[in-house]
């Protein structure tokens, strides 16, 4: 029998306040195989770790159970500690008596009973543990970045600068993302294009970066260090290599009625188009939905005027297959649809617009050349009202529970820019709270109020309606405690932001977890903020949670540094907790083969000696390089032939027995 030591951590008062440590220690001592048990205030501290090492040596322990926090937090810490005194790291088990017990219970008596059950389960399991030896796998020295906005570009540039090759896959025909649509940026008011477009050029010209635009990642297989991605490059109908971006085709295209997505539908574009003047690649693309040639086989004017013969109506989607060591998700965000907010009348009045639409109306490269006019009739507005938190901090089904974080600051920026450029326009802002944490942010807000005379009103809006050629905004002023009616020419809605709709699909493709709002989840909220819990998957930008440009750039750099840290390694240690086949039990039924998400199971015809009967049988064989130890096969196997090392059926049943025994 193994000699087992049990260590019960107080975690300060995190565990000790809800679990009686002494009782857990006393109960552990009664379990078979346990030769010593003790409590300690902080097991993860150096003192705690040395306590464990000394005990291993003194009692000649072959197995250790740590009753403490989640194994996701410190399993690696204690396994490494075991290794220092020559104990196989897989002889250490964690009983999670914090997240699974003390944090979710209030009653100390009940908490203690549960902690003892969890400890007993871990003791039962470790008595059946066997030493396991980790393997090695190689690292493909190339990274994939999904998304070509500011987050993806910054990550790609930082990785490329460290000497590794990066592919950026962008769904749109140009890189640049949302930031390319923005006019100016807070709190310095430098123009977004002036700081973004040079980065776009840097990315395009960097020898280590390949931009794969108008493309989507279709599938990803493999694991950290050895991902295989399939990328669909959609047909542009324009040869990217020969097109010079001269724009002659656009001037001749007779189909001019498609909504210009880049300007959020505020104006129209032709069917063959370059998304915006600074687009990269500066190459035209044909919209197959509206192109007369592609829909009705007529026209073809662009093809005849193109001097470099770049247009090819027969172009097909192209499939690219590449291998990567690491993948960065930078799929960004989109503002939510505000149609459901009927009281704000976005669908009923043309002059009710969203903040991103206002960005385009104020942008020198926008549909009005930067002249702020009413959308309905092109006239000059004299009163503009902003409404913040449209869909943010909203617990109804039409909004989002979270704070979108950027709206207070961009609304403040809009208000200030309007007052600066058009001092005759009165600007009102309805707010719930004004949230301005950030360097120079509150100072910025104060300037809007004190120097630029923006009228901030604490309260929410109940109704926006048209009367006498004006919009009337009915709201409550919570400071004066009265209902107010404000005449406006335009109403601007600071709509909440949500993850780009592609994020959900990308996350499931990468088996990266997402939260209820479809933001990708980080491995640890504080300590591992740019890594996904899935090894080799990293997070950059708003796909992980709302953030502004400075934060996005910082996080993008952090994600890049984690990628670089992975790609510099020549070998990765692989987990030995993989599936194995009991050849005597396997019937070759293929259930495991069908369920394995990693393609790790194959079949071999093997000569089997089954209690004296020699015959050739079809037996499942696990490829240890591909198996990720998910355990799906061991559940699917009807004969119990598939087992997961480190989590064998026997071990799991021993845990269940131990819990049920109490």
């Amino acid at each position, binding site marked *: 029998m193994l000699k087992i030591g049990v260590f019960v951590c107080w975690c300060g008062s995190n565990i000790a306040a809800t679990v009686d440590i002494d009782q857990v220690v006393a109960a552990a001592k009664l379990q078979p195989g346990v030769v010593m048990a003790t409590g300690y205030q902080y097991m993860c501290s150096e003192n705690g770790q040395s306590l464990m090492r000394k005990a291993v040596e003194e009692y000649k322990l072959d197995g250790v159970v740590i009753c403490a926090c989640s194994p996701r937090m410190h399993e690696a810490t204690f396994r490494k500690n075991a290794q220092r005194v020559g104990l196989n790291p897989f002889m250490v088990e964690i009983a999670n008596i914090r997240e699974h017990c003390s944090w979710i219970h209030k009653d100390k008596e009940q908490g203690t009973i549960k902690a003892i059950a969890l400890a007993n389960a871990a003791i039962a399991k470790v008595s059946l543990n066997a030493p396991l030896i980790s393997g090695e796998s190689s690292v493909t020295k190339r990274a994939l970045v999904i998304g070509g906005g500011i987050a993806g570009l910054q990550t790609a540039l930082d990785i490329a600068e460290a000497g590794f090759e990066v592919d950026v896959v962008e769904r749109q025909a140009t890189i640049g993302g949302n930031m390319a649509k923005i006019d100016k940026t807070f709190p310095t008011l430098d123009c977004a294009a002036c700081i973004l477009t040079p980065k776009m050029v840097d990315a395009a010209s960097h020898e280590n970066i390949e931009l794969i635009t108008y493309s989507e990642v279709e599938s990803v297989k493999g694991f950290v260090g050895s991902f295989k991605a399939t990328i669909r490059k959609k047909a542009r109908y324009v040869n990217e290599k020969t097109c010079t971006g001269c724009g002659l085709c656009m001037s001749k295209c007779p189909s001019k009625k498609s909504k210009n997505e880049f300007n959020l539908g505020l104006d129209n574009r032709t069917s063959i188009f370059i998304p915006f003047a600074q687009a990269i690649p500066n190459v035209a693309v044909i919209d197959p939905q509206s192109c007369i040639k592609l829909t009705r086989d007529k026209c073809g004017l662009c093809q005849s005027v193109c001097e470099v013969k770049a247009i090819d109506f027969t172009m097909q989607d192209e499939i690219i297959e590449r291998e990567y060591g690491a993948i960065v998700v930078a799929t960004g965000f989109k503002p939510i649809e505000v149609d459901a*907010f*009927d*009281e704000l009348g976005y669908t*009923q009045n043309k002059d009710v617009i969203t903040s991103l639409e206002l960005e385009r109306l104020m942008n020198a490269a926008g549909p009005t050349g930067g002249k702020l006019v009413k959308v309905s009739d092109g006239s000059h507005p004299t009163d503009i009202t902003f409404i913040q938190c449209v869909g943010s901090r909203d617990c*109804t*089904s039409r909004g989002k529970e979270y704070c979108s974080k950027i709206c207070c600051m961009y609304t403040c920026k809009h208000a200030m820019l309007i007052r600066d450029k058009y001092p005759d326009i009165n600007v009102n802002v309805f707010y719930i709270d004004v949230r301005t944490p950030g360097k120079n942010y509150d100072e910025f807000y104060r300037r809007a109020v004190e120097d630029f005379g923006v009228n901030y009103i604490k309260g929410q809006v109940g*109704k926006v*309606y048209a*009367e006498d050629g004006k919009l*009337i905004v009915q709201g409550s002023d919570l400071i004066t405690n009265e209902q107010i009616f404000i005449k406006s020419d335009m109403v601007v809605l600071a709509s909440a932001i949500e993850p780009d709709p592609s994020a959900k699909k990308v996350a499931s493709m990468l088996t990266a977890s997402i939260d209820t709002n479809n933001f990708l989840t980080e491995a640890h909220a504080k300590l591992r903020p740019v890594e996904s819990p899935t090894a080799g998957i990293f997070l950059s930008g708003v796909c992980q949670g709302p953030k502004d440009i400075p934060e996005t750039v910082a996080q993008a750099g952090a994600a890049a540094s984690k990628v670089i840290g992975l790609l510099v390694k020549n070998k990765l240690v692989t987990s030995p907790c993989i599936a194995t086949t009991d050849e005597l039990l396997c019937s070759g039924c293929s259930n495991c083969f069908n369920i394995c998400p990693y393609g790790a199971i194959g079949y071999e015809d093997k000569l089997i000696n089954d209690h004296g009967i020699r015959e050739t049988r079809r037996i499942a064989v696990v490829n240890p390089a591909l198996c990720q130890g998910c355990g799906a096969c061991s559940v699917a196997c009807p004969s119990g032939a598939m087992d997961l090392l480190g989590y064998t059926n026997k071990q799991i049943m021993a845990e269940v027995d131990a819990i049920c025994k109490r």
Partner: protein
Amino acid sequence: MIYSYYPGCTLKTKAKELDIYARRSLEALGIQMEELADWQCCGGVYPMAKDEIATKLSSVRTLNQAKELGRPLITLCSACHHVLTLVNHDMKNDSNIRNKANDYSKFDTPYKGETEVIHFLQLLRDVVGFDNLKAKVTNPLKGRKIGAYYGCLLLRPSAKLAFDSPENPTIMEDFIKAIGATPVVYPFRNECCGGYIAVTDKGQATKNVDRIIDSAKYKGCDELVTACPLCMYNVSGNASEGKDISIKYFTELLAEALGVK
């Protein structure tokens, strides 16, 4: 199918027109409806308290009675509909309220929110269908510009009432169209008339009503329709002098259009 009918107290006193014209109209439309034998007051606004069970009991009894008859329950008064729907929602979804109400009531089988509560307008929309209604109109109210006055109780809380969009409803406009008149959409059609505040602060009710009437007239309404006796009371009685506008129950116009007024 026969529907159970819950008139409520007001329809037996102040709002008799709402009731009478509804009965005549349904007869004309060939829909059978029977008044519940032992209905009680819905409880008014009192059952809305989250922590009070006793005030919900009269609604629960009514709902259970309809369940025992195995018929959907038709309502007419906005306030009764509001209260019965919300109490029913509680009985279906709030185990605390459900258990306590059943413990007290001692029905043969516990009531768990089985009854389907349907407002008369929903019956017209979802069972009769506005297109069919239009076909049965013998006396279309041509040329009349009518504004729907929804008030607040029919529409909110929208997730529980599940009646129509609380901010941009269309059911009454569609109804007005079906009886041959021209619906006029005006911004304040879904705002509060002041409700019971008229009892303690008449000035506030007058302010609310004036705003509704101004808004309706500005958009060209000649008359208003409502489903709510309380709205009727405030709009017809508490406007400033000279501001008044004709307001009728929607069932009266329905009966007129069907030629049974």
